[in-house]
């Protein structure tokens, strides 16, 4: 078992944990956390595979950098929607 394979398997495990979390958890913010964990798993598969050769492959590194930014963008959007929905729910609860 090499280092690359080890992290590859861990990446897939993280993806699985996140996937199960997304499907099983009802709390929205935790669902968003689960999606992020899923994403970290995918990035780990990328980076692990990139280091399987003698010199690391930098193309997956660049792809993961793009992926991280896109992931944070999606997370921010989801959180802002959660906050807006929450703000709309508030007055109803008071009444």
């Amino acid at each position, binding site marked *: 078992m090499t280092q690359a394979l080890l992290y590859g398997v861990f990446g897939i495990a993280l993806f699985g944990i996140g996937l199960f979390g997304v499907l099983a958890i009802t709390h929205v913010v935790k669902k968003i956390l689960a999606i992020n964990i899923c994403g970290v798993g995918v990035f780990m598969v990328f980076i692990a595979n990139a280091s399987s050769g003698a010199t690391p492959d930098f193309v997956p590194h660049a792809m993961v950098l793009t992926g991280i930014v896109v992931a944070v963008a*999606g997370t921010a*959007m989801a959180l802002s929607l959660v906050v807006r929905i929450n703000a709309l729910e508030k007055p109803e609860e008071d009444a």
Partner: protein
Amino acid sequence: MPVFDVASLLPLLIAIPLIGAIFSVLLSTKHAQVLVGLLSASSLVCVMAIILANLPSGGTEFATPIRYALAGWKAPLGIALSLDGFSALLLSLTVFLVTVLTIYSAYYFAASPARVRFWPLWWLLVAGINALFLSADIFNVYVTLEIIGLAAVALVALSGNKAGLTAALRYLLVGLLGSLCYLLAVALLYHVYGTLDFAQLAATAESNPLSWAALALITVGLVLKTALVPLHFWLPHAHGSAPAPVSAILSALVVKASFYLLVRFWMEILAPAVTNEALMLLGILGGIAILWGCVQALRTKRLKLMVAYSTVAQIGYLFLLFPLLMSTEGASGSQLAAQHQSALAAVSYFIVAHACAKAAMFIAAGNIIHSLGHDDIARLQGMAKYMPLSLFTFAIAGGSLIGLPPSAGFIAKWLLLNVAIDTNQWWWVVIILMGGLLAALAIFRVLDLAFIKPEQASDYIAPDNWQKVPVAMPASGLALALCTMALGFNADLIIDLIAIGGGE
């Protein structure tokens, strides 16, 4: 040898909407944004027309896609744009619909403060769609998928009410999950084949466990985004609560974008990993989607939701493509290629017919909401008197969705039936006909109520705060509906275009 290279025009299809987005952010006054919109739309039309006019019509150029290596780096190091018949058709469809919907939106958002954010997001969405259809790189496709997904969510959330925001949030989470499944597949494919380029992957792909895993992940991810039953749960509310032009583009183009990718992967990039059983499975899900979508459309009480459920059914028809690709024993390679060609032509026709008809229907529904303030089907009684043009549009577009001759929907179903019979899969014929019947019931339920004479209605309520809409709004819908008719008479145009670039 033409004077200029068609390929060098391809980046313009992405750059023009991006420039439009930048200017609509910077110039936030109403007239400036509309002007930017019209300029961007008309320049897109010009570029697309030049590209279409210069497409190769024969010879060796005919059989290979047009490619453009961005940044001057050839694949696998760089990213290429590529154009073949199938993507050219979808791009033309995009440009055409976007132009009509831009004109419609100029009126729809005239008095709404949401327009400030609508226009930039609209052009970013268009850039994403064009970029996806042009992309020849599997990671680049991931980025375009995210552009489309996030822009679509932001546009759905423009409605600002709780139902719209909740639908947007669900749509976003589903989209993110789908993209991540796709991205994991990209990681696997890159690991195995060492390239991200469509053509290089197609040349080296073989049937091994990692290819199957990648294809399965891609399919799950994209089926989530395309909303095939049983993963359609997010679609009706997202499409039903968005502003009308947004619903129109979501149903007409956004779900087709992920379907387009599925076709690319199943027919081209990972074709060696495809099995007959998997093709059949997608077809069965498609068949269920047709019936389920139609039944739900019959049951729903809101007009826009009904149109959205009809999209679920129509997506089902698209997936009938897959079982029709199944190889039979003893068929030669050229026979199979011809079978693929005719199946793809039928489904492409379906995409175009549905896109025009569905956009027209959402425009009509949007007009009804605009002037009545609601879209409750039961309260539409006698409304044909107040908005004849919108309901006429609804009727024509509905005719195309049902598949009545001479509409484009009829030709599309006819082509599909032919391929089904040619490949001895007669059971699809039953499902296609039943789907048409159920769609007819749903459409006539609305038309029956709307065209009833007010005096005859038992509980007729005059609309209390009825507003007249500018004539351009129903007119743009009618133009799209009439297009479905015109396409019914010009079927060869589309079928010939599809053949460019090696057929698939």
